């Protein structure tokens, strides 16, 4: 006998869990099927060497939406909060950033930074209001869509003449020009430009990088934190919350296909041949995988298939995890500073040069890095007295022109270590074990296509109304009963939960309307 549910969520990524919990909270009988043996998708804590664990995907918490937390009544336990960013320079002269404060630059840059931060925060908050809503469809006469559009227009106008003009000017612009206009200090410019390009296939000179910068600041003004137990703990928290609301979460169950009957969704089938019935199937997988692999293109229009096929989602972010017997020495950095987030992006042209090879499917010989030592504030992640270093490294294109063989991996790892060595000369001597995760590894481990942490590039042509593709931005795909709730849908990635929450609200609203 097959089991039947009100809704089935494919994938227990954090968005899938949020979506399931929201639906269960509204009284639906929900099943979540996860291929891996643990929940969380890329928001996971994995052991990479005996005794050493790390957040293997995202390692900093900044995008988690307050609305998600309050709707579900949960709150993650933090190991550290409001982290400082330290832009590492040579010879121990660094630039330190937190909120609207910056140290290590001259008074003019400090003044400019306060102004820059104020502007960005204001625009990011405006953006955030619309990240937490279903984007309207365009060209319809539907009242909800028109209201939603009107609200967007109203919010922009409410900025006032000067700020509205500034917003409309900046929204399509590159971060490079804005930074060059304002600041003199190269470390400061490098660090800010890094925030705009992390997780993207863009360089600081690429238009659109102001948007990506704003996106990063949207949920909590860019405030950085780390959860106790790594990102996997956040997923556990969400899974427990979902279970409390009555969600049935089953791991080790890979969904093979979405069952379609009479032109509509009827359920899912797992690798084991098990069929679960439901008229509502919500995919936390990326949109390409959802349509091309799980559903099958024969159930949707050619035009739609073509659009889905064209979604750009080739990742560039790799991760390096190091098991250390001791913290490294960094000139000008005291022990207490190790709670911070360190960046190696010495100037904005360096970041742009790191990006150049990615255009030709080559890796950066001099990569940019975002580094944390999570075990410093969360000793449970490493054996006593030892430490974990977690670094996001760009750019490592998903596909390498010459192919990612062992030699290429080793060559890239050498480039990373050489770059680290410029600031942490004794690091190599402290390494007990290491793990390098390339975009292809993320794809394999977490199922995200292209290893792209946003499930699709976060650019204006794949944003809001046109995310994942035009006509499907409202979470419902053009097959009755099929929905998206992952980062590939509006608003995009990061451990934010917005896509999962928005999708649940859209499904509930649709049921109510029907």
């Amino acid at each position, binding site marked *: 006998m097959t089991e039947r549910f009100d809704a089935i969520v494919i994938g227990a990524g954090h968005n899938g869990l949020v979506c399931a919990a929201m639906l269960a909270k509204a009284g639906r009988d929900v099943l979540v099927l996860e291929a891996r043996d643990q929940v969380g998708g890329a928001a996971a804590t994995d052991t990479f060497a005996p005794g050493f664990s790390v957040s293997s995907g995202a390692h900093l918490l900044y995008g988690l939406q307050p609305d998600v937390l309050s709707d579900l009544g949960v709150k993650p336990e933090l190991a550290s909060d409001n982290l400082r960013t330290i832009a590492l320079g040579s010879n121990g002269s660094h630039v330190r950033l937190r909120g609207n404060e910056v140290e290590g630059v001259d008074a003019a840059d400090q003044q400019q930074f306060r102004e820059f931060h104020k502007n960005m925060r204001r625009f990011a908050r405006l953006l955030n209001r619309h990240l937490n809503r279903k984007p309207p469809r365009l060209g319809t006469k539907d009242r909800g869509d028109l209201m939603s559009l009107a609200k967007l227009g109203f919010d922009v106008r409410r900025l006032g003449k000067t700020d*509205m003009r500034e917003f409309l*000017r900046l929204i*399509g612009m590159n971060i490079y020009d804005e930074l060059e206009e304002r600041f003199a200090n190269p470390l400061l410019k490098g660090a800010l430009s890094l925030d705009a390009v992390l997780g993207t296939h*863009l360089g600081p000179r690429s*238009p*659109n990088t102001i948007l990506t910068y704003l996106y990063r600041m949207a949920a909590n003004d860019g405030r950085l934190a780390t959860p106790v137990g790594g990102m996997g703990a956040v997923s556990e928290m969400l899974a427990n919350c979902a279970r409390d609301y009555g969600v049935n979460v089953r791991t080790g169950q890979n969904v093979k296909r979405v069952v379609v009957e009479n032109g509509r969704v009827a359920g899912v089938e797992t690798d084991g041949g098990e069929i679960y019935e439901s008229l509502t199937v919500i995919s936390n997988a990326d949109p390409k995988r959802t349509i091309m692999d799980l559903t099958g293109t024969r159930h949707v229009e050619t035009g739609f298939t073509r659009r889905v096929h*064209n979604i750009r989602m080739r990742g560039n972010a790799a991760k390096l995890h190091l098991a250390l017997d001791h913290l490294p020495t960094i000139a000008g950095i005291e022990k207490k500073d190790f709670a911070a987030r360190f960046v190696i992006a010495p100037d904005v042209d360096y970041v742009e040069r790191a990006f150049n090879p990615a255009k030709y499917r080559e890796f950066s010989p001099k990569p940019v890095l975002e580094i944390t030592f999570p075990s410093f504030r969360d000793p449970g992640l490493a054996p006593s007295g030892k430490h974990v270093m977690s670094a996001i490294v760009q750019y490592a294109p998903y596909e390498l022109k010459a192919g990612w063989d062992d030699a290429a991996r080793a060559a890239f790892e050498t480039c990373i270590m050489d770059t680290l060595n410029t600031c942490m000369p004794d690091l190599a001597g402290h390494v007990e074990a290491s793990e390098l995760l390339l975009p292809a590894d993320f794809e394999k481990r977490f199922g995200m296509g292209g290893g792209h942490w946003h499930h699709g590039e976060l650019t204006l042509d794949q944003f809001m109304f046109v995310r994942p593709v035009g*006509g499907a931005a409202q979470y419902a795909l053009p097959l009755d009963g099929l929905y998206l709730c992952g980062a590939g849908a509006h608003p995009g990635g990061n451990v934010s939960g917005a896509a999962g929450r928005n999708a649940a609200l859209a499904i509930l609203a649709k049921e109510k309307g029907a």
Partner: protein
Amino acid sequence: MKTYDAIVVGAGHNGLTNAAFLAKAGLNVLCVEKNDYIGGAAVSRNLYKDWIYSNCSYVCSLLRPEIFRALELHRHGLQVTPYGGGVTLMENGDYFGSYWDHDVAHREFARHSKHDADAYDRYSADVMRQCRFIRDFLMRTPPDPTSFKPRDIKELIHLGGKFMEMGEDRMYDTIRFWTMSVAEYLEEYFETDVIKTALSGSGIIGTALGIHSPGTAYVLLHHYMGEVDGNVGSWGFARGGMGSVSKAIAGAFQAYGGELRTDAGVEQIVVKNGKVKGVALTTGEEIDAPVVVSGMDVKRTFLKCMDKNDLPEPFWNRVNNFKIRGSSGKVNIALDGLPTFPALPKGSPLLDGDMHFIDSMERMERAYDDWKEGTWSKDPYIDMLIPTVNDPTMAPPGKHFMSCFVQYCPPKVEGREWTNEERDEFGQTVINQIADYSPDFKDLILHAEVRTPKEIEDEAGLTEGNIFHGELTMDQLLFNRPVPGYAQYRGPVGGLYMCGSSTHPGGGVMAAPGANAAREILLDLKRHNTVPENFGDD
């Protein structure tokens, strides 16, 4: 002392167009030009013996037909003859040609890829739809989205209405088209590298962006939205060189009673009591007028020709940060005969159009990487044309003129001024690339004029030699052009107007900025409008 109703600074094609429409409305207009010849960057110059060089702009398509007709440019001698085709020569000895004839074009696409041949029809239809959409806005003043004035609201509704008219799916396509990179846009249609490369060139000509930079798909449009004789998207030669365009507009201006003075460079736009008073020439002479219209780019207008104290500070800062980047150069060559290209079949019509010598997307993008590092592209994108194949008036019988537009070329080399040796080296880079595909080319060269952005700035007055008077990025388009709040052709001082390509809809020999500015001036002066409305599309 003689006074005028209006003084237009700069006799480029936009300045002249503006002056002509003002004169047509009965104003007493003076147009002053610093050079001893008119035309700005739309010029024909006799720089070597009997050769005529279109030494800046070199082809014609964008010139608005409304303006052509309203100013009766045909009566003033302007003839534009369309040219067909174009070709990209490949490193492997093959080529990819484009042809006007649909069936021939299809066959050529299919020779490289059947898939791409089929995709081309879809691509053409989609791009043409975007052209139609934007063409409607070219002859209109951009609305101020922050304003509550009825006129702005009406214009915004018009803009929104045109957008809605497209239908849901097309609206999404439009959003994407305006924000994507040309490389990614082409990627969605085509699979063959050389085909994508050939089509991508239009996305970066004149801009300091690479084919992978978001926003370059729009620039593509900027090269497709023109027309010759009603054929949207086609390009043509102005008979006698591009100077014929300026000459014809100047002819119209003078026929309406306007006065033209060359060798009259403006030192300063004079402001008194918050209003313009007139202009002071470099000779010290002052000429008064209640209206001064600048055809120069905004940086030159406000930073060089005005007193900072006369301008609001935020405005001055915005102009100071206006992006107007030199990214292209030109090499103009007098030839002893027609060079041969062994890759092409004998008598091929492909020689009539533009020729390119870069055949992969990677080479295109790497050319941009050189520019970012502050040097000229070592393997540049060259848009080469031999206008004399169509227009024998530009060179002695049997001889030819070749125009090479070169992308990318920086205004300064690694942050310092160009040296003569570097300029020659840049010219040689261009010549060598062409010579790789034409063994007899070098021997035919009689004279070559090499122009880096610096020469273009010095002669035509374009800041950094930027051919569009400012980058065509989203932060500098429509109501953001040239700077937010000043997109309606009015400067920050009473009586001061802008009519150059720094204003909407931007550069190219289009004349729309000049005409749009005239409409606003006539509105302010409560004169009847002489500027034609958009023809509307077919």
